[in-house]
C-alpha cells in the first residue's frame, strides 16, 4: 500500500507544484507574495467546470479556463500590483489578500456557497502493474503536469523570450537597460503562471471530484511555505519542494499515521528549513 500512497502523494504534489511554480515565478520577477494566485486557481476550477458542463469537452474547458485566468492574472498585475511596487512589500501583500477574499466572495455569490461535484474520467489509459491500478485520472494528472514542466523548461532555457524572462528575474533594471521590454516580460510571466494555476484548479477539481469557493484557502498559504522551502523565486526549487511535500503528507499522515495536522506540515517544514538554510533549498545567496 505504500506505493499507492506514494503515487497519490505524487498527484497531490503535482497540483501543489502547478500552483507554487507560478508563485515562485511572480516572486522572482516582482518580489510580491501573490496570495491571490490561489484565487485565480479557484476561479480557474469554476470556469473549467462551467465550460465542461456546457460543451462536454474537458480539453476545451482547460484551455478556455487557462486563457481567461491568464488575462485575469495580467489584469491583477497591471491595475493593482504595478502601481504599488514602490511601497514596502506588505502593501501589495495586503492588496493581494483583499483580492483573494474578494474573489472567494464573488464566486460564492455567483456559483453558490455549496460544494459542487465534478465527476468525469479523463481520456487517458488506465495502467495496471502487478495487480495495482493507476486510474486514468491519476495518469492524466501525471501526464499533463509532466507536459507543463517540460514546456516551461523548454521555454525558459531554449527560447529568447525565456532568457529575457530569467534576466528580468535576476535584475530588472539591468535587463531593461539591455533593451528587454520588462513590462511585456512581467505581463507574460503573470499570464503563464495564472494559466498554469487555472490548469491546476481544473485538475484538482477532477482529482477530488469537487470544487468549492473555499478550495483556494489552503493552497494560498501552503504555496507560500513551499516557495520559501524551495528558495523564494526559484521555480525548480518550488516544484521539488511541492512534490516532496505531497508525498510526505500522504505517506506520513495517511500511511504512518503521524498525529499531526496535515496542513501544518508545510509550515513546520518551512520553519525547519529557515533555521537551517535561510535562503531555502535552492535559493540564491544574498
Amino acid at each position: 500500500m505504500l506505493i499507492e500512497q506514494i503515487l497519490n502523494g505524487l498527484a497531490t504534489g503535482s497540483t501543489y507544484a502547478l500552483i507554487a511554480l507560478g508563485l515562485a515565478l511572480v516572486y522572482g520577477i516582482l518580489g510580491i507574495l501573490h496570495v491571490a494566485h490561489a484565487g485565480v486557481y479557484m476561479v480557474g476550477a469554476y470556469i473549467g467546470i462551467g465550460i465542461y458542463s456546457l460543451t462536454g469537452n474537458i480539453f476545451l474547458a482547460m484551455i478556455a479556463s487557462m486563457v481567461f485566468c491568464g488575462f485575469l492574472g495580467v489584469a491583477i498585475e497591471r491595475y493593482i500590483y504595478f502601481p504599488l511596487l514602490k511601497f514596502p512589500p506588505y502593501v501589495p501583500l495586503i492588496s493581494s489578500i483583499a483580492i483573494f477574499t474578494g474573489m472567494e466572495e464573488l464566486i460564492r455569490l455567483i456559483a453558490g456557497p455549496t460544494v459542487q461535484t465534478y465527476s468525469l474520467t479523463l481520456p487517458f489509459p488506465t495502467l495496471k502493474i502487478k495487480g495495482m491500478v493507476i486510474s486514468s485520472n491519476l495518469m492524466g494528472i501525471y501526464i499533463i503536469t509532466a507536459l507543463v514542466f517540460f514546456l516551461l523548461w523548454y521555454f525558459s532555457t531554449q527560447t529568447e523570450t525565456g532568457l529575457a524572462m530569467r534576466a528580468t528575474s535576476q535584475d530588472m533594471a539591468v535587463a531593461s537597460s539591455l533593451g528587454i521590454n520588462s513590462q511585456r516580460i512581467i505581463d507574460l510571466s503573470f499570464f503563464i503562471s495564472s494559466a498554469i494555476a487555472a490548469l491546476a484548479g481544473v485538475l484538482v477539481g477532477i482529482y477530488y471530484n469537487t470544487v468549492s469557493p473555499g478550495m483556494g484557502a489552503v493552497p494560498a498559504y501552503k504555496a507560500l511555505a513551499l516557495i520559501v522551502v524551495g528558495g523564494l523565486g526559484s521555480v525548480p526549487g518550488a516544484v521539488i519542494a511541492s512534490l516532496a511535500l505531497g508525498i510526505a503528507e500522504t505517506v506520513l499522515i495517511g500511511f504512518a499515521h503521524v498525529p499531526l495536522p496535515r496542513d501544518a506540515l508545510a509550515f513546520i517544514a518551512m520553519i525547519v528549513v529557515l533555521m537551517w538554510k535561510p535562503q531555502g533549498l535552492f535559493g540564491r545567496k544574498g
Partner: protein
Amino acid sequence: MSYVITVAIFISIYAIVAYGLNIIVGYAGQISLGHAAFFGIGAYSAALLTTKAGLTFWGALPIVILISAIIGILCGLPSLRVKNDFLAITTIGINFIVEAIFLYIPFFGGALGLGGIPRVVFWGTKLKGGNYLALCLCVLLLVVLINRWFAKRWMGLACIALREDETAASSMGISPMRFKLIAFVMGTAIAGVGGALYAHQMHFIAPSDFGFTVSVMLLSFVVLGGMGTLWGPLLGALILGSLPELARPLANYRMLLYSALLLLMIRFQPQGLLGKNSFLLSIFSRKERGNG
C-alpha cells in the same frame, strides 16, 4: 443599544491588539502576519486560568501577560532572524501552527473550544454591557499611552532607527536582535491582554477565532490607519471594525464590499489614512500648520 455596546466592545478589543501590532510593525518595522496567534494565546490562557485553575480575571491577568510574553520570546527569537517577506511567511506559519495546536490537543478543547468563561468581577459587581466597555476603553487608553511612551523612549527611538536603516543603526551600536525582540514581546504581551478581554466577553472561545484571517484583519487596521502613528490603529479599527456592522443590510454582499473597500483603500492610500501623503492629514495640516 446593547448591540451598539457589543460592537464597541469588540472594536476596542481589536484596537488594543492592533496597538500591540503597531509596536511590532509600525515602530520596529517587523512585519507580522501571525499576531492573532498571540491574541489566541492570551485568550486561551485566560480561559484556562479562570475555568480550570479557578483564578479571577485580575489574578489571571499578570500570568496571561507573562505567558504571552514568554511565547512571544520563543517565537520571536528564531523568526526575527529572517527579514521582510521571509518574516511575513514565517509569522503566517506560526499562526497556522498555534491554531493547529489549539485544534488538535484535547487539553485546549479541540474544535469545540473552551466554554464557561466567567464574567469579570470588579468591586463585587459583574461587569457587562456598558461597564465592560468602560473597562475595555480604560485598557485601550493605557495601551495608547504605552505606545506614546514607547515611541519617545530610547528603545522606541532605537526601533525606529532600525526600521529606517538597519545597517546604519547597528553601526551606531544598536543591537538589531535585542530591540526587535523587545518590540515583538511588548506587542505579544499587549495581544495577550486583548485576548483575555476577548475571552471574558465571549464566554466561549474556539480556535477559529484566532485564525490567519484575524491576523490579516489586525494588520489591515494598522496599515490603513497609518503604521507607526499614535492614532492610526484606532482609526483603522473604527473604520474597518464598524464597516461590516454598518453594511449588515447588504447581507450576502457584505464581505465582498469589505474586501473591495480594503482593496481600494490600500490601492489609493497605501501609507495609511494618517501616514505620509495622506489626504486626511493634508486637510488637517492646512488648518493647524506646523503641528505634524
